[in-house]
């Protein structure tokens, strides 16, 4: 298990790494960034961009750091005169046929070509000849190709060949005429294909969905977890002016390595709905009347009094909200139930245990762990006299019919469930990007997500509303933060025993009795 470590010096900093590590990764551990384009930790090494050339003492030629394994006693110079000159040469060559259209390029601001050129490139170009031109091409799926900006690092080709295992892309032609080509009759329609956009270090592969929408520097980035399925891919939510612009994968080798699927990526759209519930309402003589939170909470407690709480909770609710819902169920001797929408499972073959799962919800496992029952017809057990609480759950036609049996309906939701005729109390809540919380994925890994934007109107996190309701019912719920609720969950539910927000960090931990992670 513990192989002897290899000791080397990178930029004067001693570092010990396992044998077989390449110099780029070793340098990362030493806190040194070796500039690179074609190298990506999630892809096979190509060694073609020649950007990561470094000087290794006692070696006559500059070595490509990505394709050079560490050796005992190696002394590596990343920023020596010789290495810097080589990189300057590469940067100049990469730019000679590049259109230099940063002002209209989507990648601008998050472009590695831009970054390294500013960092150590030439201030001017010696190129006086006409530039090579190739037209923009639609690669299918969500991907557009701008060949003039392409530096032919082949990350996209290697991703499709070796990770997605769907051979769609290739390098067409030779010399400076070369560009990324698509095999005849094939398109980038693989369910994970849009990762090539993230992998592209320059503005050559762009998302058609995100095209011309925002500049990289205008975006605020927040760590979160995808709600597209039960895999729980770690993501970054990017917002501008309180609007979610896009999702991008966040690396976590225990869950999704560096990738996320196209289905999850497009899920951001549902978070920008305009028909949000913004104020609490109660059903009065003049229909739904907007009221203060105190009034609404009191109304909810009044409605619940003496009734069984029949909770229909969305499997996309956080562990915290679900935990307090389960306390409500327990208090009223009620029922907790949910349904998980199904879709086609789409694995990413190159990564162990990574797939777009058939269960298209983030927290079905969490709902089960707090004692909720998974059911195709979750309202089948609803009896006359029950108070139905709908927590962000969508209603099918059958659900709507069965919901009619309830003697009272409380909606605890970000949007009004479509088709619902009557709701005695409506309590507006936050979406996943508007609150802090945690999910439990299908392998039992608990992962935190953070608040990315402000909630509209008076909407509050579900757990916050429920804490007030429970308090009004005489329970002790002195929770001020989501972490307090999680602490309560960890002390009361053995599955979550020993976990806390501090320990979970942003990469998550498995619940008690689970292996360390999906990929390990």
């Amino acid at each position, binding site marked *: 298990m513990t192989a002897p470590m290899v000791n080397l010096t990178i930029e004067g900093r001693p570092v010990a790494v396992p044998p077989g590590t390449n110099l780029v990764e070793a340098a990362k551990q030493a806190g040194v960034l070796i500039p690179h384009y074609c190298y990506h930790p999630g892809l096979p*090494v*190509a*060694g*073609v*961009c*020649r*950007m990561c*050339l470094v000087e290794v003492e006692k070696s006559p*030629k*500059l070595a*490509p750091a990505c*394709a050079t394994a560490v050796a005992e006693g190696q002394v590596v110079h990343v920023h020596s005169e010789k290495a810097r000159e*080589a990189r300057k*040469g*590469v940067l*100049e*060559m*990469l730019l*000679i*046929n590049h259109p230099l259209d940063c002002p209209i390029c989507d990648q601008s601001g998050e472009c590695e070509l831009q970054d390294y050129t500013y960092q150590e490139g030439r201030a001017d170009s*010696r*190129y*006086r*000849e006409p530039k*090579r031109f190739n037209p923009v091409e639609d690669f299918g799926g969500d991907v557009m190709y701008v060949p003039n900006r392409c*530096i*032919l690092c082949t990350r996209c080709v290697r991703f499709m060949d070796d990770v997605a295992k769907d051979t769609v892309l*290739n*390098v067409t*032609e*030779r*010399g*400076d*005429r*070369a560009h990324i080509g698509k095999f005849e009759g094939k398109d980038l329609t693989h369910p994970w294909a849009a990762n090539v956009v993230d992998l592209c270090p320059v503005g050559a592969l762009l998302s058609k969905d995100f095209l011309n929408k925002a500049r990289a520097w205008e975006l605020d980035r927040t760590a979160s977890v995808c709600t597209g399925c039960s895999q729980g891919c770690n993501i970054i939510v990017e917002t501008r002016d309180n609007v979610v612009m896009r999702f991008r994968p966040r690396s976590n080798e225990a869950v999704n390595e560096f990738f996320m699927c196209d289905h999850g990526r497009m899920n951001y759209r549902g978070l920008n709905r305009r028909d949000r519930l913004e104020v609490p309402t109660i059903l009065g003589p003049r229909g739904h009347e907007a009221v203060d939170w105190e009034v609404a909470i009191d109304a909810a407690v009044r409605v619940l009094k003496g009734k069984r709480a029949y909770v229909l909770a969305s499997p996309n609710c956080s562990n915290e909200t679900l935990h307090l819902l389960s306390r409500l169920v327990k208090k009223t001797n009620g029922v907790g139930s949910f349904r998980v929408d199904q879709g086609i499972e789409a694995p990413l073959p190159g990564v162990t245990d990574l797939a777009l799962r058939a269960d298209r919800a983030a927290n079905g496992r969490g709902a089960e762990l707090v004692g909720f029952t998974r059911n195709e017809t979750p309202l089948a057990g609803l009896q006359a006299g029950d108070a139905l609480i709908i927590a962000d759950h969508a209603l099918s036609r059958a659900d709507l019919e069965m919901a009619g049996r309830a003697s009272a309906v409380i909606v605890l939701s970000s949007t009004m469930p479509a088709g619902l005729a009557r709701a005695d109390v409506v309590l507006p809540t936050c979406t996943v990007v508007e609150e802090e919380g945690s999910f439990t994925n299908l392998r039992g890994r608990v992962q935190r997500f953070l608040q990315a934007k402000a909630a509209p109107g008076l909407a509050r996190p579900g757990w916050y509303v429920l804490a007030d309701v429970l308090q009004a019912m005489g329970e002790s719920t002195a929770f001020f933060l989501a972490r307090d609720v999680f602490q309560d969950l960890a002390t009361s539910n053995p599955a979550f025993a020993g976990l806390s927000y501090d320990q979970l960090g942003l990469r998550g931990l498995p619940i008690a009795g689970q292996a360390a992670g999906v990929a390990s």
Partner: protein
Amino acid sequence: MGFPHTPHPRETQVLSTHFGDADARSVDGWKKRGGYQALANALGTDPVAIQNVVKESGLRGRGGAGFPTGLKWSFMKLGDGKPHYLCCNADESEPGTFKDREIMRWTPHALIEGCAIGAYAIGAEDCFIYIRGEFTEPLQVMERACADARAAGVIGKNAMGSGKTVNVWVHKGAGAYICGEETALMNSIEGKRGNPRIKPPFPAVAGLFGKPTTINNVETLTAVPHILNRGADWYKKMSRPDNPKSTGTKLWSVCGNIARPGNYEVEMGFPFGEFLQDVCGGAPKGRKIKAVIPGGSSVPVIPWEQAAAAVMDYEGMVAAGTMLGSAGCIVMDDAQSIPRQAARLARFYAHESCAQCTQCREGTAWTTKILERICAGDGTAEDLDTLLSIGDNMTGKTICVLSDSCATVVSSALQYFRPEFEALIKRTTIHAVPQVVAR
């Protein structure tokens, strides 16, 4: 395609003995001329013994790099339980080189015999001859000869009745210069795009289909049966007395502005000046040789004075400021414009760059554009420095040496013939093409 010329008395014919002898193309005809005797003997000896004889003979790779063949073979770990492969590099695409073509056209069985011995010596059962895509006639000849040899039991499951398996297969390339690079060649055989691979791992560790592989040039393998037949000492003697590092004979392809172009076989250490003037007949009538590229387009061009004093072996050519390379000798007389020739060669490299490494993909094309602009009369004073600087960025920084080769052409042309470039830039010459004189 020309018929072989009458041998010059100063040539030493070993490999070229049967050039032009159509009967030598058949199995029986080849056996009549002493062929396949070396293979029969070899299959009865220990592979290590064969390696040692070749090592002792001093035979070096004829493809360009000049790596000692016996040493290369000894890198293959015999009995490691893995399949071994031998690749014969017949992708002779180096501009100016056409020696392997003649070997394959006239003496296909000589190559098959060399391949079979080479395969046996490295513990391989299969040898793949990778033939350049444009070589239609050599391909036909080789395919025919392989089929004949297999039918005659020379190669196959029970080669020469020895009970040992030695197969020789012919694989046709698709016409890419880069597939002559050994790792690109292996990719091409595997059915992949002909891109050179990063080394390490070296082919002897993980080559064709990920298995230990040796790659030898056509001429190298063809020389092996002669060495086994006549002994390492005989081969070693064909060298300069003061330089035992280059041994044997070498086929030289001579083309360009020369009275008698063609393939010539001479011993290592032959004086280059006499070779060009005497054996090849010197420059066309009324002209003078100005410059020579002695080893195929990838080696530095040198002026005639330097070439005339050079000696034709690996070390001699290095001493003259160039390299022996693949011995594809391109002769340029005083009617040629060096900038124009450099531009033409740079265009070749720009066309053939596999597009993997940045410096090569962009640098070869950039170099070409600048040179062609200079030739068109639009050069500027700083262009020459830019060319050298680009060349510097293209040297020693890429996966293979295609990029270095392009830079070599330009830097050597600038080193020896800078005034010609400057004259074009200053427009003291009206155009880059000097008047062609009637011969």
